[in-house]
């Protein structure tokens, strides 16, 4: 093949910029012309896999049942920190129905996230993997776990963030418990603080949030002597394949990973888990399919979380502008090796001239963090946008007006590149109108009863979402004229199949129901992780190119079949159209028999000179009961600037979902750990409070809906994370407006509200 080139691409993933290579060939498609008429793009289409979802026929990993399948269960550490001195599994092995036991003294090495084995010598949190059993049924596996004798040597532990950063805390690693995780300096903050008219300082806290995807993490593994097939509930089939390769040292060609449907991930299902490696090790060892699926309790101990944070912000104003900010953050990473950086929004959202930010990773004896929908940005935006409101109040400027002064810039302050498209001020205008900002009164208004106060607040969102290479798609015509679109992405609940089919149908000129989408399988062409709000912006442009390629090839073949010059043919609504004649595609494809047209498309690199970001703003109206401390969120207006909207119906669903999940973070969700025992006290759905239908306010969803033509050939950016970012700050600012007190700890529970109210009484 001629014309292959390799170019560098700079892509953003969860707040960090990565440089990657992209192989490109031919030329990219230009973006759709302004004012182009669409058949599919921009239309509210029902999900093409809706019938499977409502009939129970959609197959999730939990539903995969294979002949002879064994059930694996995991023995987890009951101690927050201990050395595993010895394990005696003889009694467990002798139990009828038990087929295998794995632990650190008998298990083959299996590399996992920088460690040599999945069973640690020193277990470091309650829930850490100690051993695993494979048995004929779950009940036998569970009984066998109870027969494994483990000799632990207990070691001093610390689970709490603020305890772990003190000098008295046990040192968990050679370097201590606190590690640098990034810093940024711009201008001369120190001098600007000296020169300021007003300086506001605050300490903010956010609690550990548990993902609680309804489908727990899990995998089913099958080894046929040559191919290891793993069904896994995951956001990245190719990532799982890479993780299995690293652990089992099998060639990639011998590993296949499938995720047909998955029951939520929210960032926590980004790669291989120990459960998948356990299932695969047993499957290879025992030559039987093995299922290893976490219980709800395990899910809440060992499957990730959003780090608790401690954040200190100092912010200054002079002459009605923000002149300096200092933001320092500590994150409880548990045993995780990275940090979801809460200072990301501070670094990038506004054109602050003078800034210092620092982020620290704190190691504790608690479950590791994993990405949780806009990791770091949810926590950081809560603090930043609260602090800006406090400053606005101090200097007597309307908080929205103060933000407008710093949100107009068309330059990314971190990279000094121009934004491909930024319509944040328009988001502000739309949101202010929808919530009735002009009626906002300093000090709030009376609520529905004398002891109830009503207030309005807002918060701003910045996030990446530009996507990037590599991402591929293929499109082929069957002999009956139907179309199969393949991409190695997966649908985590956003409607990926449907939007990709819409893009394909649009480009091909065929009806949506002619297109079948095959995703969630490493047998398809590579697709990126469904995270970082990058799926549509990465895979969508590749689908468009693949469809275009298939169409061009098919028209070439049709020219031969119909004996009409190629230049006179076009494809339109399922037909090959030439001067005056319309031939159904199926008629042409039938004549081609099994001579198959396969179109290929790949994602082109992002423009080198531009910064691609998504923006938005949420406005909240709340009522606060000053006797009970309850916060009632009455209305949230969510406005987002994310480029072109491919499917307004599924897009609105994602925004509603983001707002509701954000309200959980803001008001009710909090992992509670007993410090002395190191135990999670609410590792379930009874005492860990996720929002129910009764907690849902009126939600108004608006988009600027302007294609970002300079971002990619589709003009679309990501939407998964933006709607969870600014809600908590909007609520906190509305509460402050309503009551005059500032809640600096999320979730803003009734107890914390009452505590704050008592401060001013």
């Amino acid at each position, binding site marked *: 093949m001629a014309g292959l080139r390799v170019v560098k691409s700079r892509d953003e993933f969860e707040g960090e910029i990565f440089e990657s290579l992209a192989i490109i060939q031919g030329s990219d498609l230009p973006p759709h012309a302004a004012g182009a008429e669409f058949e599919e793009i921009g239309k509210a289409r*029902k*999900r093409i896999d*809706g*019938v*499977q*979802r*409502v*009939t*129970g*026929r*959609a*197959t*999730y990993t*939990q*539903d995969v*049942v294979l002949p002879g399948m064994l059930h694996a269960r995991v023995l987890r550490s009951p101690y927050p920190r201990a050395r595993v001195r010895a394990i005696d599994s003889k009694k467990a092995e002798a139990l009828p129905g038990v087929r295998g036991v794995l632990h650190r003294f008998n298990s083959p090495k299996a590399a996992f996230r920088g460690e040599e084995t999945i069973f640690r010598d020193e277990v470091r949190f309650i829930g850490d993997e100690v051993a695993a059993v494979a048995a004929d049924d779950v009940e036998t596996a569970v009984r066998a776990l109870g027969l494994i004798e483990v000799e632990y040597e207990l070691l001093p532990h610390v689970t709490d963030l603020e305890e772990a950063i003190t000098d008295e805390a046990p040192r968990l690693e050679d370097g201590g418990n606190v590690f640098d995780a990034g810093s940024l300096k711009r201008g001369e903050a120190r001098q600007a603080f000296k020169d300021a008219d007003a300086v506001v300082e605050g300490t903010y806290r956010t609690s550990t949030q548990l*993902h*609680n*995807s*309804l*489908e*727990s993490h899990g995998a089913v593994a099958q080894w046929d002597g040559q191919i290891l097939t793993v069904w896994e509930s995951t956001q990245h089939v190719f990532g799982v394949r890479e993780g299995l390769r690293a652990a089992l040292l099998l060639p990639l060609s011998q590993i296949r990973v499938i995720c047909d*449907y*998955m*029951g*939520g991930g*929210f960032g926590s299902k980004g790669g291989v888990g120990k459960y998948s490696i356990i299932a695969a090790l047993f499957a290879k060892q025992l030559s039987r399919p093995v299922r290893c699926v976490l*219980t*709800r309790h395990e899910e809440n101990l060992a499957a990730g979380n959003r780090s608790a944070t401690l954040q200190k912000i100092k912010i200054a104003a002079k002459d009605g502008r923000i002149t300096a900010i200092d933001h320092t953050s500590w994150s409880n990473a548990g045993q995780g090796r990275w940090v979801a950086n809460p200072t990301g929004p501070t670094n990038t959202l506004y054109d602050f001239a003078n800034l210092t930010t620092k982020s620290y990773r704190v190691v504790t004896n608690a479950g590791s963090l994993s990405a949780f929908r806009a990791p770091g940005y949810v926590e950081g935006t809560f603090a930043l946008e609260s602090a800006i409101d406090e400053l606005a109040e101090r200097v007597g400027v309307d908080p929205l007006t103060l933000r407008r002064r710093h949100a107009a810039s068309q330059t990314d302050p971190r990279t000094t590149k121009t934004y491909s498209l930024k319509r944040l001020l328009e988001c502000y205008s739309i949101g202010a109108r929808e919530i009735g900002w002009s009626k906002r009164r300093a000090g709030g208004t009376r609520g529905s009863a004398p002891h109830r106060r009503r207030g309005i607040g807002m918060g701003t969102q910045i996030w990446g979402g530009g996507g990037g290479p590599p991402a591929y798609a293929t499109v082929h015509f069957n002999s009956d004229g139907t179309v199969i679109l393949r991409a190695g992405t997966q649908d*985590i*609940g*956003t*409607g990926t199949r449907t939007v990709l089919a819409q893009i394909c149908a649009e480009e091909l000129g065929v009806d949506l129901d002619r297109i079948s989408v095959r995703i969630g399988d490493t047998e398809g062409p590579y697709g990126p992780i469904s995270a970082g709000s990058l799926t549509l912006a990465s895979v969508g442009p590749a689908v468009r190119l693949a469809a275009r390629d298939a169409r061009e090839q098919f028209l070439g073949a049709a020219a031969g079949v119909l004996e009409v010059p190629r230049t006179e043919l076009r494809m339109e609504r399922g037909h090959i159209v030439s001067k005056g004649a319309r031939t159904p595609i199926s008629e042409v494809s039938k004549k081609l028999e099994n001579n198959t047209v396969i179109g290929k498309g790949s994602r082109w690199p992002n423009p080198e000179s531009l910064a691609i970001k998504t923006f938005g703003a949420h406005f909240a109206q709340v009522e606060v009961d000053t006797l009970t401390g309850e916060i009632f969120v009455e209305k949230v207006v969510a406005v987002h600037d994310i480029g072109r909207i491919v499917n307004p*119906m*599924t897009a*609105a*669903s*994602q925004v*509603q*979902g*983001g*707002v*509701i*999940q954000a309200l959980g973070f803001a008001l009710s969700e909090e992992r509670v750990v007993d410090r002395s025992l190191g135990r999670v006290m609410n590792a*379930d*759905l*009874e005492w860990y409070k*996720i*929002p*129910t*239908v*009764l907690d*849902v306010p009126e*939600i108004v969803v608006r988009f600027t809906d302007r294609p970002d033509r300079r971002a990619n050939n589709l003009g679309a950016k990501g939407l998964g994370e933006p709607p969870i970012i600014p809600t908590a700050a909007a609520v906190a600012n509305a509460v402050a407006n309503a009551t005059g007190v500032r809640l600096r700890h999320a979730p803003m529970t009734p107890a914390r509200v009452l505590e704050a109210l008592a401060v001013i009484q």
Partner: protein
Amino acid sequence: MGADSIPRCSIPSNDMPPFRGPDAVDISLTVNGQGATAHLRPQRSLLELLRGPLGLTGTKLVCNAGNCGACTVLVDDRPVYSCITLAVACEGKRVETIEGLSKDGELHPVQEAFIDHDAYQCGFCTPGQVMSIVALLRTKGKPTEDDMRRAVTGNLCRCGAYVNIVKAGMSAARRATK
């Protein structure tokens, strides 16, 4: 929950069959209109019976503790959490699951409405949500929006599809009464 809301785990105690076990027992019941028999230990839940021996995996296992509603099925028209309902307690009863709703390839109006209103995201809670609404519509032909919300208060949706779930339920109610 309001006084008129639909009871959960609603096998009344005076309706319980006599003590059985401790070894495996035979049970027979009706599942989706067809007779079904199973031989299982009496501590097995209805959910285990459905997902295991009967192979009906449309009903989802999430919390296994009666907290989330993902496993909601109908027993004699009433919604129950099948994870905390004993299979033996359903002896002789009529159990309906998500698989039994569509007849001759025709979707149930609630299923149709879920598709029309995008009342799901990942879809894992969907079978339970649908069954809870089907149960409501059998007892109340013209529910209010408040009735609809209360019917699914016991069904958690982590993706936050609640707004559209309520819309879909109301739309199905209107369709059914037409």
